[in-house]
Structure formats: structure tokens, C-alpha cells
């Protein structure tokens, strides 16, 4: 990735996704509001991690550390939800 072209393309894609985010905020999708917003932000984050953070072209050790980061995020969400989802009203 020595050329600047992929970065320009990713930047463009991020701006397009930004416009979609703002647009989606004005459309009421009912129960799908949150999932759609999450999906858009997930694709933005993936683009940043894979291209801007160079993970796509890094060695396996880096991949492991990235996965560990997401696994830990999973721990945080799962165990927090073990409280939120099992509270008595």
C-alpha cells in the first residue's frame, strides 16, 4: 500500500457512509433503527481498521492482537448484559 489511492478511496467511502448515517437518522425504520445504525458504523470501523490501521496487510501476530481487542470488547458487552438482561422489573 505505497500508493495514496487506496486511502483516498477509503476516505471517500467513509464520507459516503457518513451521509448514509445522517440520512438513516431521518428515516424511521421502527425496530430496525438500531441494527441499521450499527451495521453502518461497523462497516466504517472495519474500513478504518483494515486500511487506515494497515491490519489487512500485516502479519498474523498483529491479526491475533486485533482479534484479542474485539474479543475483550465482547467480554465487556456479554458480562454487562448478563446484568441488564436478567434484572427483575
Amino acid at each position, binding site marked *: 500500500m505505497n500508493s495514496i489511492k487506496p486511502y483516498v478511496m477509503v476516505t471517500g467511502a467513509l464520507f459516503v457512509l457518513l451521509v448514509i448515517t445522517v440520512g438513516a437518522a431521518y428515516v424511521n425504520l421502527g425496530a430496525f433503527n438500531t441494527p441499521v445504525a450499527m451495521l453502518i458504523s461497523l462497516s466504517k470501523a472495519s474500513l478504518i481498521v483494515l486500511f487506515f490501521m494497515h491490519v489487512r496487510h500485516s502479519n498474523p501476530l498483529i491479526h491475533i492482537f486485533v482479534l484479542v*481487542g474485539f474479543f475483550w470488547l465482547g467480554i465487556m458487552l456479554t*458480562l*454487562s448484559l448478563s*446484568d441488564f438482561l436478567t434484572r427483575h422489573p
Partner: protein
Amino acid sequence: MNAIATPQAPPQPPSHEPSYLAVENTVRSWLLTTDHKRIGILYMISITLFFLVGGAAATLMRLNLLTPQGALVTSTTYNKLFTIHGVIMVWFFLIPSVPTVIGNFVLPMMLGARDVAFPRLNLASWYLFIGGGAFALWAIIAGGVDTGWTFYTPYSSTYANGHVIAMATGIFIAGFGSIATGLNFIVTVHKMRAPGLTWHRLPLFVWSMYSTSVILVLATPVLAITLVLMALERAFGIGIFDPAIGGDPLLFQHLFWFYSHPAVYIMILPGMGVVSEIIACFSRKAVFGYYFVAYSSVAIAVLGFVVWGHHMFVSSQSIYAGMVFSILSFLVSIPSAIKVFNWTATLYRGSIWFQTPFLYVLGFIGLFTIGGLTGLFLAALAVDVHLTDTYFVIAHFHYIMVGGMVMAYLGGLHYWWPKISGRMYPELLAKLSALFIFAGFNLTFFPQFILGYLGMPRRYHAYAPEFQVLNVLSTAGASILAIGYFLPLAYFLWSLRYGKVAGPNPWQATGLEWTTESPPPEHNFTVVPIVTEPPYAYDPVAAEEALAAKREQREPAYVR
């Protein structure tokens, strides 16, 4: 006669270069240094100053608690004192203590490296630490914070009446210093090991520092996020934690303890690494069960992340979550227990040499065990309901953090002081102060177990009259403890000029850091060490024989 210790690599040839201390001695050369050893010294001086601030707050609290009505300070001032004590001791002393002082100094040398992987980032970490510390000190001087070190909402948001945001900013900035240090150490361990230094030949201190670094990198960002969210709610009224504006009242505690329980392991794992080094050296034996001790560090780093809910048993967290966190909390005690049993087994048939670092380590093992076992009381749901927010909790975590980590830090400082300064500290005085600290510590904190069991709550400036005797004992113990802490400060400074010259390896230890000169040259090694031995190739039988021979010649058994 056999050698009593085989170092991991042959001793270095003389370097003919000035030591890292003598290279250049302008203020500028210190403040802009990228030498990991000098950065370690910068941290040592700064955390000592922060320790004095945190200690002063503790002193005022203990004096206030001499009488049941708490005659010395008002309840508001008392709230500010325990907040200062907690914030300063946790973030500006304990978390940086062993990693940034001893870790910075010896980790690269243990790996046979000339420096850490990113020397300039290392210096930047120190500046972030100092910048964060400046914010925290400013918040204290400007009037303080009364939320406790935990910053629970709504004390820190809706009802905050102190300089919460300034204090949080300080912790936020210092946190980035921690993250950078953790990252630096991880890359250093992966990339900078000397030829022949395989993962299973790494000293156990390196394993524990590696595990600590993983926690620093994975947990600290969550603290930063939490503090930002808290500041957002306080400054802009965005509903995150306040149910009245759409937040969840327990979310703050979940996020805070997702960081702060692993932070407990940031504050103890490095100490465990120090213990492994010292116990092998002073019993002249390889650490029993190297793999178990090494991988239990990794296990602690992982399991430490799944137990945070034990701080929330009475917070109205769901009973189901409470049960899950209780069981997981019992699990995390297993790797700690493995370490304690393996250290004890290391002593068996060793050739014990009672020098000051070893005294601290024995103190660590005993006190950490008490701290750990009382942790099991608190991990049990039903018992915790009675003990939550009592002095039992205070005693429990001080046994871990002061009885454990501070003991290990001081033990490590004594052990590596000859390497750091090139001089020996005065042994007799050092032993005496170790005993002062052990006695003073127990007199300070053991009565607090009883106070807590009897129901004395924490964080109150006054208490019921029947608790006075135990409180007076505790304050008396604290004054002995204070003497024990001031003595090393005095004799370490004294030894810089008057101490006996140490030589490269005064303990006849096996680590790579002992193959180079004391104090080491700027780049640590003149030739790249090639590692041919496992760590801890000590021979207790040869050590005993050497000792017997010395005794026969009626020589003082100073160096064996």
C-alpha cells in the same frame, strides 16, 4: 566445587564507556533522555513524590480517626482526604510503581536489549504521567474532589461539588502514559529478545510484565472512555448514567470496574514477577514449576477481566449476574494460589540467604495470602452483603496492595539497587526497616479486619465509640509504618555516596542484567549476549558447600 549460579550468558567484557549515570549530567540530558534506565529513575523520583502526597492524606485520616467524633477534620474535608489518598496512590503510585520504575530499568536488560522498542514513546509516557499528575495536583489544590477514587455517578455527575472534571482529566492523561508503556513493553518482549532467549527461557519477571502490559493496553482505554462519558453527562447533560435523562444507573459501575478490577492485577502482577526473581536468587534454586508460574500470570491477566461484578453485589445488579461474577471470582484465585504454592515449594531444600530483598518477599507471600484469602470472603455473595463498604474491604485490599505490591516494590528496589546505583545499601538498617514495615503494616491493617467484621463502615470521619481501641491501634501501626518507609528513603540517598561499591553481580544472580556492569553503560551491553541457559540455573547444594567452607575459614558470609 561447582558454581552456585550459572548466568544466562557469560559476563560482559569491560565497556570502557561511562555509566548511564555519568554520561552527561545536565538537567536537559535527563529531561530529554530516551535511555530506559534514566526514564526509570525519572519515574522513581516522581512516584516517590506522589507517594508522599498520598501518604500525607492517609496520615491526616488516621490522626482524625484517633477519636470517635473525628475531631481533626470536618466530614467534607475527610471525604476529600480519602479521595486524594485513593486517586494518588492508585494511579500515581501503585500502577506505575513496579512497571515504570523496575520494569523500565530491568526489562530491556533482562532481554539482553539496548533499550525498549520505542525509546521516545517511553519518554512521552513519562511526560503524559507528569502532565496527568499536574492536573490531579491542581484539582487537589483548587479545592479537591469528594467522590472517592471510584467517581461513582451521581456523586461525580448530578451532585458533584468539587473539581471532578480536572481530576478526571488528570487520570485520563496519565492513562495514556500507561497505555503507551504497556504497548512498548509488549513490542519489546516480542521483538527485542537476545539470540537464544526463547519464551521459555524468559525470567518470570518478564512474563508478569508482559501480562501486565496486556492488561494495561486492553483495560485502560475503557477507563478513559468512562471518564469522558462521565464528563459529557456532567458538562452537557447527555443521559448516559442518569436514569432521569435516559441513562442506566449501573452502567458507570460496570464500565469503571471493567477497568478497575483488572487494574488490581496491574497493581499486583508486577510484584509477583519481582517475588519470583528474588525467591529464586535467595534460595539458590530454580523457581518450582516455571511453566505454571509463567502461564498463571497470563491466566490472571485473562480471568481478571471477567470478575468485575463482585464490586457490585449490593448495587442492585441482577442476582443472576451476581452469581456468575461470584463463581468467576473464585476461579481467579486459582492462578494466584498456584504462584503462592510454587514459591513456597521453591524454598524447600533451597539454600536460604536472609538478605533484605528476601525479607520483603517473605512478607509479600504471607501478607498477599491473607489479602487473597479474605478476598474469597468478599467474593461470596452472602458474606459480601454484610462486609460491603466496611473496613474489612479496606483491610483486604491494603493487604494486597500495600502488603503485596509495596512490599514487592521495596524488595525489588533493594534487589536491583546495586544495579541501579552501583552501590550497596546498608544491610542491617535495611533489615531493620523491613521489620518495621512488616510490623507496622500488620498493626495498621489487621485491626481493620476486625473493625469491618464488627460493622464499622468505610469513608466516615466519625464512628461509634466502641471502635476506638482498634482505631487507635491502627493509627499507632501507621506511625511505625511511616518510620519504616522513611528509613529506605534516607539510606538509599546515603548509599549513593557512601555505600559499598557493588560490582556487577553482588547477589551472584543468573539474569542477563547481572552480566553487565553496575551501573550499566548507556547501551547496557558491549557485546550482544547469547543466551545458552534457562533462567535460575542455581545450585543450592554448591551454595551450601560454599557457605560451609566460608564458615570454616571464619569469614563473614557477606558474599557467597
